[in-house]
Protein backbone atom coordinates (compact mmCIF):
# COMPACT_ATOMS: atom_id res chain seq x y z
CA UNK A 1 0.00 0.00 0.00
CA UNK A 2 1.39 3.39 -0.93
CA UNK A 3 1.98 6.33 1.36
CA UNK A 4 -0.96 8.23 -0.01
CA UNK A 5 -3.31 5.40 0.97
CA UNK A 6 -1.96 5.41 4.51
CA UNK A 7 -2.54 9.15 4.79
CA UNK A 8 -6.04 8.94 3.30
CA UNK A 9 -6.99 6.10 5.64
CA UNK A 10 -5.83 8.16 8.60
CA UNK A 11 -7.61 11.23 7.27
CA UNK A 12 -11.02 9.61 6.89
CA UNK A 13 -10.77 7.85 10.24
CA UNK A 14 -9.97 11.27 11.73
CA UNK A 15 -12.80 12.91 9.81
CA UNK A 16 -15.29 10.44 11.22
CA UNK A 17 -13.90 11.05 14.70
CA UNK A 18 -14.17 14.81 14.21
CA UNK A 19 -17.81 14.49 13.14
CA UNK A 20 -18.35 12.96 16.59
CA UNK A 21 -17.93 16.43 18.01
CA UNK A 22 -21.39 17.30 16.65
CA UNK A 23 -23.94 16.53 19.33
CA UNK A 24 -25.79 13.28 18.63
CA UNK A 25 -29.50 12.88 19.21
CA UNK A 26 -30.04 9.97 21.53
CA UNK A 27 -33.21 8.08 22.39
CA UNK A 28 -34.16 6.02 25.37
CA UNK A 29 -30.99 6.99 27.09
CA UNK A 30 -28.26 5.14 25.28
CA UNK A 31 -30.30 1.96 24.87
CA UNK A 32 -30.85 2.73 21.19
CA UNK A 33 -28.20 3.92 18.71
CA UNK A 34 -27.99 7.70 18.54
CA UNK A 35 -28.68 9.69 15.40
CA UNK A 36 -25.18 10.79 14.63
CA UNK A 37 -23.29 12.86 12.08
CA UNK A 38 -20.60 10.20 12.09
CA UNK A 39 -22.33 8.05 9.51
CA UNK A 40 -21.70 10.92 7.07
CA UNK A 41 -18.02 10.13 7.62
CA UNK A 42 -18.68 6.54 6.57
CA UNK A 43 -20.31 7.67 3.33
CA UNK A 44 -17.55 10.16 2.50
CA UNK A 45 -14.84 7.63 3.25
CA UNK A 46 -16.36 5.34 0.64
CA UNK A 47 -17.33 7.94 -1.92
CA UNK A 48 -14.12 10.01 -1.83
CA UNK A 49 -11.38 7.65 -0.68
CA UNK A 50 -12.69 4.61 -2.56
CA UNK A 51 -13.50 1.04 -1.60
CA UNK A 52 -10.18 -0.09 -0.22
CA UNK A 53 -9.00 3.10 1.44
CA UNK A 54 -12.50 3.94 2.69
CA UNK A 55 -13.14 0.48 4.09
CA UNK A 56 -9.77 0.38 5.82
CA UNK A 57 -10.32 3.89 7.20
CA UNK A 58 -13.50 2.71 8.89
CA UNK A 59 -11.80 -0.45 10.11
CA UNK A 60 -9.11 1.74 11.64
CA UNK A 61 -11.78 3.93 13.20
CA UNK A 62 -13.65 1.10 14.89
CA UNK A 63 -10.38 -0.47 16.03
CA UNK A 64 -9.47 2.82 17.72
CA UNK A 65 -12.90 2.89 19.35
CA UNK A 66 -12.47 -0.70 20.49
CA UNK A 67 -9.16 -0.04 22.25
CA UNK A 68 -10.95 2.58 24.30
CA UNK A 69 -10.39 5.92 22.56
CA UNK A 70 -13.51 8.04 23.13
CA UNK A 71 -14.14 8.72 19.45
CA UNK A 72 -17.85 7.96 19.18
CA UNK A 73 -20.25 10.88 19.38
CA UNK A 74 -20.45 12.13 22.93
CA UNK A 75 -17.06 10.70 23.84
CA UNK A 76 -17.87 6.97 23.97
CA UNK A 77 -15.47 4.12 23.28
CA UNK A 78 -14.24 0.74 24.50
CA UNK A 79 -15.31 -2.80 23.72
CA UNK A 80 -18.53 -2.18 25.60
CA UNK A 81 -20.11 -0.24 22.74
CA UNK A 82 -19.93 -3.26 20.45
CA UNK A 83 -21.97 -5.23 22.95
CA UNK A 84 -24.62 -2.49 22.89
CA UNK A 85 -27.41 -1.71 20.46
CA UNK A 86 -24.99 0.23 18.19
CA UNK A 87 -22.58 -2.66 17.78
CA UNK A 88 -23.92 -4.02 14.50
CA UNK A 89 -23.97 -0.59 12.89
CA UNK A 90 -20.39 0.03 13.90
CA UNK A 91 -19.27 -3.30 12.46
CA UNK A 92 -21.14 -2.42 9.28
CA UNK A 93 -19.23 0.84 8.80
CA UNK A 94 -16.22 -0.67 7.01
CA UNK A 95 -18.52 -2.75 4.84
CA UNK A 96 -20.73 0.20 3.95
CA UNK A 97 -17.76 2.38 3.05
CA UNK A 98 -16.29 -0.38 0.91
CA UNK A 99 -19.60 -0.97 -0.90
CA UNK A 100 -20.05 2.74 -1.61
CA UNK A 101 -16.48 3.00 -2.82
CA UNK A 102 -16.89 -0.01 -5.05
CA UNK A 103 -20.10 1.27 -6.65
CA UNK A 104 -18.78 4.76 -7.28
CA UNK A 105 -15.50 3.35 -8.53
CA UNK A 106 -17.52 1.79 -11.34
CA UNK A 107 -19.04 5.14 -12.34
CA UNK A 108 -16.72 7.91 -11.17
CA UNK A 109 -18.38 10.53 -13.38
CA UNK A 110 -21.86 9.71 -12.07
CA UNK A 111 -24.27 12.61 -11.83
CA UNK A 112 -26.26 13.40 -8.71
CA UNK A 113 -29.17 11.12 -9.58
CA UNK A 114 -26.92 8.10 -10.01
CA UNK A 115 -24.46 8.77 -7.23
CA UNK A 116 -27.02 9.43 -4.50
CA UNK A 117 -28.67 6.00 -4.81
CA UNK A 118 -25.26 4.33 -4.73
CA UNK A 119 -24.39 6.11 -1.51
CA UNK A 120 -27.85 5.35 -0.11
CA UNK A 121 -27.46 1.67 -0.92
CA UNK A 122 -24.18 1.31 0.97
CA UNK A 123 -24.88 3.90 3.62
CA UNK A 124 -28.44 2.93 4.49
CA UNK A 125 -29.45 -0.48 3.13
CA UNK A 126 -26.21 -2.34 3.80
CA UNK A 127 -25.71 -0.56 7.11
CA UNK A 128 -29.22 -1.36 8.34
CA UNK A 129 -29.04 -4.94 7.09
CA UNK A 130 -26.22 -5.63 9.51
CA UNK A 131 -27.22 -3.21 12.24
CA UNK A 132 -30.89 -3.98 12.73
CA UNK A 133 -30.65 -7.74 13.46
CA UNK A 134 -27.84 -7.05 15.91
CA UNK A 135 -29.86 -4.38 17.62
CA UNK A 136 -32.90 -6.64 17.81
CA UNK A 137 -30.80 -9.39 19.38
CA UNK A 138 -29.06 -7.14 21.88
CA UNK A 139 -32.14 -5.21 22.93
CA UNK A 140 -34.38 -8.29 22.91
CA UNK A 141 -36.75 -6.70 20.37
CA UNK A 142 -38.70 -8.53 17.69
CA UNK A 143 -37.18 -7.84 14.27
CA UNK A 144 -40.30 -6.05 12.99
CA UNK A 145 -40.26 -3.74 15.98
CA UNK A 146 -36.56 -3.02 15.40
CA UNK A 147 -37.29 -2.16 11.76
CA UNK A 148 -40.08 0.20 12.78
CA UNK A 149 -37.80 1.95 15.25
CA UNK A 150 -35.15 2.41 12.58
CA UNK A 151 -37.62 4.30 10.38
CA UNK A 152 -36.98 7.26 12.67
CA UNK A 153 -33.34 7.30 11.47
CA UNK A 154 -34.13 7.31 7.77
CA UNK A 155 -34.83 11.04 7.27
CA UNK A 156 -31.53 11.96 8.90
CA UNK A 157 -29.67 9.38 6.87
CA UNK A 158 -31.24 10.66 3.65
CA UNK A 159 -30.02 14.16 4.46
CA UNK A 160 -26.53 12.71 4.94
CA UNK A 161 -26.78 10.92 1.59
CA UNK A 162 -27.58 14.20 -0.15
CA UNK A 163 -24.75 16.01 1.62
CA UNK A 164 -22.31 13.23 0.83
CA UNK A 165 -23.31 13.31 -2.83
CA UNK A 166 -22.90 17.07 -3.18
CA UNK A 167 -19.57 17.05 -1.35
CA UNK A 168 -18.23 14.12 -3.35
CA UNK A 169 -19.15 15.70 -6.65
CA UNK A 170 -17.57 19.00 -5.58
CA UNK A 171 -14.38 17.30 -4.46
CA UNK A 172 -14.15 15.38 -7.72
CA UNK A 173 -14.42 18.59 -9.67
CA UNK A 174 -11.72 20.19 -7.55
CA UNK A 175 -9.53 17.09 -7.94
CA UNK A 176 -10.22 15.69 -11.36
CA UNK A 177 -7.47 13.10 -10.86
CA UNK A 178 -8.88 11.71 -7.58
Amino acid sequence: MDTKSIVYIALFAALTAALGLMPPISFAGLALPPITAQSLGVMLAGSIAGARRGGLAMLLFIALVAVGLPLLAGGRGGFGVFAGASGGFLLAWPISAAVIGYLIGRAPAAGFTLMAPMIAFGGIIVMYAVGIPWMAAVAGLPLTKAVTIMLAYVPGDLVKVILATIITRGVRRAYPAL
Partner: protein
Amino acid sequence: MIEIKNVTLSYGDRTVLRDISLALSEHRIAIIGANGSGKSSFARLLNGLVLPTTGDVLIDGQNTRTHGKDIRQKVGFVFQNPDNQIVFPVVEEDLAFGMKNLGFPKEDIRRKTDEILARYDMSDLREHPAHLLSGGQKQLLAISGVLVMEPAYIVLDEPTTLLDLRNKRRVTEAIHALDQTVILASHDLDLLQDFDRVIVFDDGRIIADDRPENAIPYYIESMS
Protein backbone atom coordinates in the same frame (compact mmCIF):
# COMPACT_ATOMS: atom_id res chain seq x y z
CA MET B 1 -13.68 55.01 11.52
CA ILE B 2 -12.43 52.02 13.48
CA GLU B 3 -12.07 52.28 17.23
CA ILE B 4 -10.34 49.72 19.39
CA LYS B 5 -10.98 50.25 23.07
CA ASN B 6 -8.85 48.58 25.74
CA VAL B 7 -8.78 45.33 23.87
CA THR B 8 -7.18 42.21 25.32
CA LEU B 9 -7.24 38.89 23.49
CA SER B 10 -6.38 35.50 24.97
CA TYR B 11 -6.50 32.00 23.58
CA GLY B 12 -6.93 29.82 26.65
CA ASP B 13 -4.24 30.98 29.04
CA ARG B 14 -2.13 32.55 26.30
CA THR B 15 -2.56 36.32 26.01
CA VAL B 16 -1.73 37.51 22.51
CA LEU B 17 -2.98 41.12 22.59
CA ARG B 18 -2.55 43.26 25.68
CA ASP B 19 -4.69 46.29 26.33
CA ILE B 20 -4.68 47.85 22.87
CA SER B 21 -6.48 51.16 22.28
CA LEU B 22 -6.44 52.81 18.86
CA ALA B 23 -8.53 54.95 16.56
CA LEU B 24 -7.92 54.23 12.89
CA SER B 25 -9.11 56.87 10.46
CA GLU B 26 -6.25 57.23 8.01
CA HIS B 27 -6.57 56.01 4.46
CA ARG B 28 -3.73 53.47 4.52
CA ILE B 29 -2.58 51.87 7.71
CA ALA B 30 0.05 49.15 8.05
CA ILE B 31 0.66 46.67 10.85
CA ILE B 32 4.13 45.19 11.14
CA GLY B 33 5.98 43.14 13.74
CA ALA B 34 7.79 39.88 14.43
CA ASN B 35 6.30 36.43 13.79
CA GLY B 36 3.77 35.71 16.51
CA SER B 37 3.55 39.31 17.69
CA GLY B 38 -0.23 39.39 17.19
CA LYS B 39 -0.73 41.03 13.77
CA SER B 40 -3.10 38.42 12.38
CA SER B 41 -4.99 38.21 15.64
CA PHE B 42 -5.41 41.98 15.59
CA ALA B 43 -6.57 41.95 11.98
CA ARG B 44 -9.21 39.32 12.74
CA LEU B 45 -10.67 41.49 15.47
CA LEU B 46 -11.54 44.16 12.92
CA ASN B 47 -14.36 42.32 11.24
CA GLY B 48 -15.54 40.39 14.24
CA LEU B 49 -14.08 37.06 13.16
CA VAL B 50 -12.57 37.00 16.61
CA LEU B 51 -14.15 38.81 19.53
CA PRO B 52 -11.92 40.50 22.09
CA THR B 53 -11.61 38.77 25.46
CA THR B 54 -12.06 42.16 27.11
CA GLY B 55 -12.70 45.58 25.58
CA ASP B 56 -14.55 46.50 22.39
CA VAL B 57 -14.00 47.01 18.69
CA LEU B 58 -16.28 49.56 17.00
CA ILE B 59 -16.65 50.00 13.24
CA ASP B 60 -18.44 53.24 12.37
CA GLY B 61 -19.85 53.05 15.87
CA GLN B 62 -21.11 49.47 15.59
CA ASN B 63 -19.71 46.94 18.04
CA THR B 64 -18.31 43.71 16.56
CA ARG B 65 -19.88 41.83 19.45
CA THR B 66 -23.39 42.72 18.43
CA HIS B 67 -23.20 43.62 14.73
CA GLY B 68 -20.84 40.97 13.41
CA LYS B 69 -22.81 40.26 10.31
CA ASP B 70 -23.28 43.87 9.18
CA ILE B 71 -19.67 44.61 9.93
CA ARG B 72 -18.42 41.75 7.79
CA GLN B 73 -20.21 43.22 4.80
CA LYS B 74 -18.37 46.46 5.38
CA VAL B 75 -14.98 45.07 6.25
CA GLY B 76 -13.46 42.82 3.60
CA PHE B 77 -10.72 40.45 4.71
CA VAL B 78 -7.93 38.75 2.78
CA PHE B 79 -6.29 35.91 4.69
CA GLN B 80 -2.62 35.20 5.03
CA ASN B 81 -3.00 31.70 3.63
CA PRO B 82 -5.06 31.78 0.42
CA ASP B 83 -5.99 28.11 0.83
CA ASN B 84 -8.13 29.14 3.77
CA GLN B 85 -10.09 31.55 1.75
CA ILE B 86 -10.98 29.65 -1.37
CA VAL B 87 -14.44 28.24 -0.81
CA PHE B 88 -15.49 26.73 -4.13
CA PRO B 89 -13.88 24.12 -6.37
CA VAL B 90 -13.63 26.18 -9.56
CA VAL B 91 -12.09 29.66 -10.01
CA GLU B 92 -15.15 31.31 -11.51
CA GLU B 93 -17.55 29.92 -8.92
CA ASP B 94 -15.30 31.02 -6.14
CA LEU B 95 -15.20 34.58 -7.44
CA ALA B 96 -18.97 34.62 -7.70
CA PHE B 97 -19.47 33.29 -4.17
CA GLY B 98 -19.16 36.57 -2.26
CA MET B 99 -21.18 38.52 -4.81
CA LYS B 100 -23.98 35.97 -4.67
CA ASN B 101 -24.08 36.22 -0.92
CA LEU B 102 -24.52 39.97 -1.21
CA GLY B 103 -27.33 39.46 -3.71
CA PHE B 104 -25.66 41.01 -6.79
CA PRO B 105 -27.63 40.43 -9.99
CA LYS B 106 -26.39 37.71 -12.37
CA GLU B 107 -25.14 40.00 -15.14
CA ASP B 108 -23.19 42.08 -12.65
CA ILE B 109 -21.52 38.98 -11.31
CA ARG B 110 -20.58 37.88 -14.79
CA ARG B 111 -19.21 41.29 -15.77
CA LYS B 112 -17.18 41.76 -12.62
CA THR B 113 -15.78 38.25 -12.85
CA ASP B 114 -14.62 38.94 -16.41
CA GLU B 115 -13.09 42.24 -15.39
CA ILE B 116 -11.10 40.98 -12.47
CA LEU B 117 -9.85 37.87 -14.26
CA ALA B 118 -8.65 40.05 -17.12
CA ARG B 119 -7.00 42.51 -14.75
CA TYR B 120 -4.81 39.75 -13.30
CA ASP B 121 -4.19 37.89 -16.57
CA MET B 122 -6.15 34.89 -15.41
CA SER B 123 -8.90 34.78 -18.00
CA ASP B 124 -7.88 31.33 -19.18
CA LEU B 125 -8.04 30.02 -15.62
CA ARG B 126 -11.78 30.69 -15.33
CA GLU B 127 -12.60 26.99 -15.16
CA HIS B 128 -9.40 25.82 -13.48
CA PRO B 129 -9.76 23.86 -10.21
CA ALA B 130 -9.08 26.58 -7.67
CA HIS B 131 -7.06 24.44 -5.29
CA LEU B 132 -4.67 23.32 -8.01
CA LEU B 133 -3.60 26.85 -8.94
CA SER B 134 -0.01 27.83 -8.25
CA GLY B 135 0.60 29.58 -4.95
CA GLY B 136 0.62 33.04 -6.45
CA GLN B 137 -2.46 32.41 -8.57
CA LYS B 138 -4.35 31.38 -5.43
CA GLN B 139 -3.34 34.54 -3.69
CA LEU B 140 -4.60 36.64 -6.59
CA LEU B 141 -7.87 34.75 -6.54
CA ALA B 142 -8.26 35.35 -2.80
CA ILE B 143 -7.69 39.09 -3.22
CA SER B 144 -10.01 39.28 -6.23
CA GLY B 145 -12.77 37.47 -4.38
CA VAL B 146 -12.81 40.23 -1.77
CA LEU B 147 -12.30 43.20 -4.08
CA VAL B 148 -15.34 42.28 -6.17
CA MET B 149 -17.48 42.61 -3.04
CA GLU B 150 -16.57 46.32 -2.80
CA PRO B 151 -16.34 46.63 0.99
CA ALA B 152 -15.81 50.01 2.71
CA TYR B 153 -12.76 48.79 4.62
CA ILE B 154 -10.29 46.22 3.44
CA VAL B 155 -8.07 44.28 5.80
CA LEU B 156 -5.24 42.37 4.13
CA ASP B 157 -3.09 39.90 6.03
CA GLU B 158 0.18 39.47 4.09
CA PRO B 159 -1.42 39.43 0.68
CA THR B 160 1.72 39.40 -1.47
CA THR B 161 3.97 36.72 -0.03
CA LEU B 162 3.64 34.31 -2.94
CA LEU B 163 3.47 36.78 -5.80
CA ASP B 164 5.95 37.35 -8.59
CA LEU B 165 7.22 40.85 -9.33
CA ARG B 166 4.53 41.70 -11.82
CA ASN B 167 1.63 40.46 -9.75
CA LYS B 168 3.07 42.06 -6.66
CA ARG B 169 3.24 45.34 -8.51
CA ARG B 170 -0.34 44.87 -9.69
CA VAL B 171 -1.60 44.06 -6.23
CA THR B 172 0.39 46.92 -4.75
CA GLU B 173 -1.08 49.25 -7.34
CA ALA B 174 -4.53 47.83 -6.72
CA ILE B 175 -4.09 48.45 -3.01
CA HIS B 176 -2.91 51.97 -3.64
CA ALA B 177 -5.75 52.67 -6.00
CA LEU B 178 -8.37 51.65 -3.47
CA ASP B 179 -10.59 54.46 -2.29
CA GLN B 180 -11.43 52.41 0.74
CA THR B 181 -9.62 52.41 4.03
CA VAL B 182 -6.87 49.79 3.82
CA ILE B 183 -5.38 47.99 6.78
CA LEU B 184 -2.45 45.86 5.78
CA ALA B 185 -0.41 43.44 7.89
CA SER B 186 2.84 42.54 6.18
CA HIS B 187 6.49 41.62 6.51
CA ASP B 188 7.19 43.20 3.14
CA LEU B 189 8.31 46.68 4.07
CA ASP B 190 8.55 47.79 0.42
CA LEU B 191 4.78 47.79 0.25
CA LEU B 192 4.45 50.42 2.93
CA GLN B 193 6.45 53.34 1.57
CA ASP B 194 3.56 55.72 1.07
CA PHE B 195 1.28 54.51 3.81
CA ASP B 196 -0.13 57.10 6.14
CA ARG B 197 0.52 55.27 9.35
CA VAL B 198 2.55 52.26 10.47
CA ILE B 199 1.84 50.43 13.73
CA VAL B 200 4.52 48.13 15.10
CA PHE B 201 3.51 45.17 17.28
CA ASP B 202 5.71 43.28 19.64
CA ASP B 203 4.50 40.46 21.85
CA GLY B 204 0.90 41.70 21.76
CA ARG B 205 1.76 45.33 22.47
CA ILE B 206 2.16 48.39 20.28
CA ILE B 207 5.76 49.53 20.44
CA ALA B 208 5.56 52.19 17.73
CA ASP B 209 2.80 54.05 15.93
CA ASP B 210 4.04 56.65 13.52
CA ARG B 211 4.61 57.66 9.92
CA PRO B 212 6.50 55.03 7.89
CA GLU B 213 9.71 57.05 7.72
CA ASN B 214 9.94 56.80 11.51
CA ALA B 215 8.25 53.51 12.30
CA ILE B 216 9.97 51.29 9.72
CA PRO B 217 13.56 52.12 10.73
CA TYR B 218 12.52 51.70 14.34
CA TYR B 219 11.20 48.21 13.56
CA ILE B 220 14.30 47.22 11.58
CA GLU B 221 16.43 48.39 14.44
CA SER B 222 14.38 46.37 16.95
CA MET B 223 14.85 43.20 14.86
CA SER B 224 18.62 43.22 14.77
